[in-house]
């Protein structure tokens, strides 16, 4: 059993749980951490082990055999698949094993999953971010599984004295049909472990018809622990002698402690220490904000202790940050030319000579991830080493950040990954883990740092705030002949570098400069904006505000042209074509980390998802009075998603969204059930972003503090039908976790327009419906 389980005193049953009997193969088990098992395999996918490494493994007494990264085979044939990516609800701890175990012809019941510690050399990138797990690793997982399958086949062929091509692996056995011989993987492990790695032409990825689980529905491996309360999230790891800390952080980004009176805090029963955490040099990146920690026997004492602290703060250079004034600055910024991120034709001339011109401005506020599990981290610092347990999307960054903050070597830091109670990008930033490590060293005991919900809302890495100005020109036939898009928003890079005066045009590649529209004259520009808060990526990142502004403006243009929005969009996409936009000034690297040749802008894929969503939504069919449909399509994270939203606005201004139809083309989809769940989740998160949520600043600090004033989607508003259609494809995989968000915001706003005639140009929607509410109140009915 892993050392996490031993050290926490948790029984193995708590973390290694067998699935209940089920017609499906449910005996896949989860195993939370790794510790005692020796992993021999190399970096990033399949790497052949050389003789020296094999010897090292043998000397280390490595009974388990690990021919490739991610796979360990026990002497009894049991298979452990090491999941190097963090699980935050996207289902990677099920999807990754589905691919590997399928390719290796394993028996699902003889497999289990172990969560990898942070180690880039062993596992490649573990930064579970940017919707990259499958799109970056599918070929590696397939090759890993196929390599192990070939090794078992080679071992069996050798044993039987037949050619490897004559035998076939089948469900944890190898079969030689000609002689009707069968042997099990268990019986072959010892011999397979001594085989040379199979020749490259022996590593054969399965054909679609041979797949057993890839592309099908499989039960989530963590579902029993989750539904019985035994799943281990960040705050659920318990170490002997552990303390809990709650921290008073500077209320304003860049603020500092001037003085602390901790006399009352230390009187709170259970409070043991009050510890200063140094403020990090601005802008601080992933480092802790600093402040004053109250370390106590339990969480409640730490919370009460912090309430009793008297801290005087110097609020620093951002003390005057105020959202209303800043909004005006952004709106002024987009009135002047910005740095171009894509340029085609002559937009000035086309706008000047157009028969009809439309200009609209949009505004999207800051957002907080508000993931259900507030930030939490646990660390134990002993002489010479640091071990941490945390719900982190990026254990490698957590290691590096701890090492930097504590000024210790990164090799002395071990980071174990628990399940994440939501991530959405917030948990890519490991400030919380570094806080725990610092405090553990200060107090000489394991320390869990528990963020309260108020801490989480008020000390986050916020989704940026953005203003957009779009200008479009229509020719006499209602065709778009010019498109100028200017946006201004504080940049994520301001969290990492000093003196950043605004986003670089690179940020436009996240859903603004990679639009698939056929417009002869385009200028897509970004305007300056200085950050006064920690900005961080939040599910789909800039594509949230880009998608909202673009999808709304297209709808406005359609109405201005007097055309049906679907027909207008189809015309805007133009003929099916594949485009590399680098000649139009889009950076070669600005394609979500992929090449433009692998993933061109493909207007045909956008068209197909648009039509698929529209057909299934019954686009154009009559709706009950008061209800309207909105449509939008967006390319992001290398996938194409269209959404049709039905909305109805109640007389009190409540927006109801009874039905949503989505279509997604993400290339090959390994786990369609979870892909559907991601589309549903993206839609509901986009409802929060669009309808309810807003972070504002006053005197430099966040005004909102909890779910009472930071509103998110709840059950009553949730759609009753979310109908998701996945384009069947063997194409290169795109992202799944994020691409559902960008079209949803615009589709919601467009549906509200269709239902009420109110065009929403500022988020959240709630405020914008005041005029409509007043009108319906006057007339007595909507």
């Amino acid at each position, binding site marked *: 059993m892993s050392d996490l389980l031993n050290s926490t005193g948790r029984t193995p049953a708590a973390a290694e749980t067998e699935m209940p009997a089920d017609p499906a193969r449910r005996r896949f088990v989860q195993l939370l951490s790794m510790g005692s098992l020796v992993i021999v395999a190399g970096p990033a996918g399949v790497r052949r082990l050389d003789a020296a490494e094999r010897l090292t493994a043998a000397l280390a007494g490595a009974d388990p055999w690990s021919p490739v990264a991610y796979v360990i085979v026990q002497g009894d044939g049991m298979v452990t698949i090491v999941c190097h990516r963090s699980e935050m609800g996207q289902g990677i701890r099920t999807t990754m094993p589905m691919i590997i175990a399928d390719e290796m012809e394993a028996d699902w019941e003889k497999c289990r999953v172990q969560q990898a510690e942070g180690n880039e050399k062993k596992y490649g990138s573990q930064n579970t971010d940017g919707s990259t797990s499958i799109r970056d690793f599918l070929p590696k997982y397939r090759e890993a599984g196929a390599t192990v399958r070939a090794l078992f086949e080679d071992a069996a062929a050798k044993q039987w004295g037949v050619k490897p091509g004559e035998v076939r692996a089948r469900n944890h056995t190898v079969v030689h049909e000609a002689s009707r011989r069968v042997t099990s993987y268990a019986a072959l492990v010892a011999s397979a472990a001594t085989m040379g790695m199979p020749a490259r032409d022996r590593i054969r990825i399965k054909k679609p018809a041979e797949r057993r689980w890839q592309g099908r529905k499989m039960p989530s491996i963590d579902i*029993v622990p989750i539904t019985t309360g035994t799943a281990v999230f960040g705050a659920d790891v318990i170490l002997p002698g552990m303390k809990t800390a709650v921290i008073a952080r500077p209320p304003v980004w860049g603020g500092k402690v001037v003085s602390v009176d901790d006399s009352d805090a230390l009187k709170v029963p259970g409070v043991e220490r009050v510890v200063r955490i140094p403020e990090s040099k601005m802008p601080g990146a992933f480092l802790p904000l600093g402040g004053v920690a109250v370390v106590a026997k339990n969480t*409640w004492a730490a919370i009460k202790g912090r309430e009793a602290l008297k801290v005087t703060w110097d609020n620093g250079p951002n003390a005057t940050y105020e959202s209303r004034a800043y909004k005006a600055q952004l709106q002024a910024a987009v009135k002047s030319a910005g740095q171009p991120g894509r340029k085609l034709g002559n937009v000035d001339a086309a706008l000047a000579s157009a028969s009809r011109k439309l200009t609209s401005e949009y505004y999207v506020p800051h957002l907080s991830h508000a993931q259900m599990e507030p930030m939490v981290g646990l660390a134990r610092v002993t002489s010479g080493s640091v071990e941490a347990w945390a719900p982190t999307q990026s254990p490698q960054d957590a290691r590096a950040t701890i090492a930097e903050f504590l000024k210790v070597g990164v090799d002395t830091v071990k980071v174990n990954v628990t399940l994440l109670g939501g991530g959405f990008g917030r948990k890519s930033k490991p400030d919380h883990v570094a806080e725990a490590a610092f405090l553990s060293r200060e107090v000489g005991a394991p320390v869990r740092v528990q963020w309260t919900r108020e801490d989480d809302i008020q000390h986050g890495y916020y989704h940026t705030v953005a203003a957009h100005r779009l200008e479009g020109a229509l020719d006499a036939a209602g065709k778009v002949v010019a498109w100028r898009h200017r946006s201004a928003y504080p940049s994520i890079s301001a969290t990492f570098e000093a003196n950043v005066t605004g986003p670089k045009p690179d940020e436009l590649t996240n859903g603004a400069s990679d639009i698939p529209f056929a417009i002869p004259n385009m200028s897509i520009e970004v305007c300056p904006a200085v950050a006064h808060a920690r900005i961080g990526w939040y599910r789909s990142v800039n594509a949230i505000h880009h998608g909202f502004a673009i999808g709304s403006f297209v709808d406005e243009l359609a109405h201005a042209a007097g055309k049906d929005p679907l027909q207008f969009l189809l015309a805007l996409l133009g003929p099916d074509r594949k485009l590399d936009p680098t000649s139009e000034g889009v950076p070669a690297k600005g394609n979500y980390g992929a090449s433009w040749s692998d993933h061109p802008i493909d207007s045909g894929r956008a068209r197909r998802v648009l039509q698929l969503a529209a057909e299934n939504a019954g686009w154009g069919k009559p709706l009950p009075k008061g209800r309207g449909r909105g449509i939008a399509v967006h390319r992001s994270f290398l996938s194409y998603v269209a959404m049709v939203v039905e909305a109805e606005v109640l007389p009190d201004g409540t927006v109801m969204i009874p039905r949503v139809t989505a279509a997604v083309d993400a290339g090959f989809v390994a786990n369609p059930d979870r892909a559907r769940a991601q589309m549903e989740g993206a839609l509901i998160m986009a409802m929060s972003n669009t309808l309810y949520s807003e972070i504002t600043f006053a005197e430099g600090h966040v005004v909102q503090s909890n779910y009472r004033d930071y509103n998110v989607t709840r059950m*009553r508003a949730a759609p009753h039908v979310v109908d998701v259609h996945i384009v069947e494809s063997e194409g290169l995989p795109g992202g799944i976790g994020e691409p559902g968000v960008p079209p949803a915001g615009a589709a919601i706003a467009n549906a509200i327009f269709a239902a009420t005639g109110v065009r929403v140009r500022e988020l959240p929607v709630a405020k914008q419906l005041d005029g409509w509410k007043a009108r319906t109140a006057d007339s007595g009915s909507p």
Partner: protein
Amino acid sequence: MITLTVNGSRRTFDGDPAMPLLWYLRDELSLTGTKYGCGVSSCGACTVHVDGRPVRACARALSTMDGHSVTTIEGLHPKGEHPAQLAWREIEVPQCGYCQPGQIMEAAALLKTTPKPTDAEIDTAMNGHICRCGTYPHIRAAIKAASEKRS
């Protein structure tokens, strides 16, 4: 001294009577299935049953718990096979799973008082629970599936 029953076992507590039941369950009893989400009864992640009724453990001080009986997600069913738990697996409700113990405890309480809930009754009962992953449509389906299992 406060005496209460937790998942069938008698417990005593003589610490700060203002301590919320949530932190007692998690920190003192290591019953970590009950989750902290907001601390102000706004999200439902900490929902347990007190004397059979759904209660937000974050807002229930131990001083009010003397003589009361608490059931947490760990004690909902001896084998973890309450109809709601089974339905949650069948419908594959969870994404990250963090809020789901609270959702299941609320659903179990609803099904006890209202074995065949309507959509409106489900929405009313569950509206106090936040799921940021957005599993609400799956939760509705699971509650209906559990309702059918019971009948």
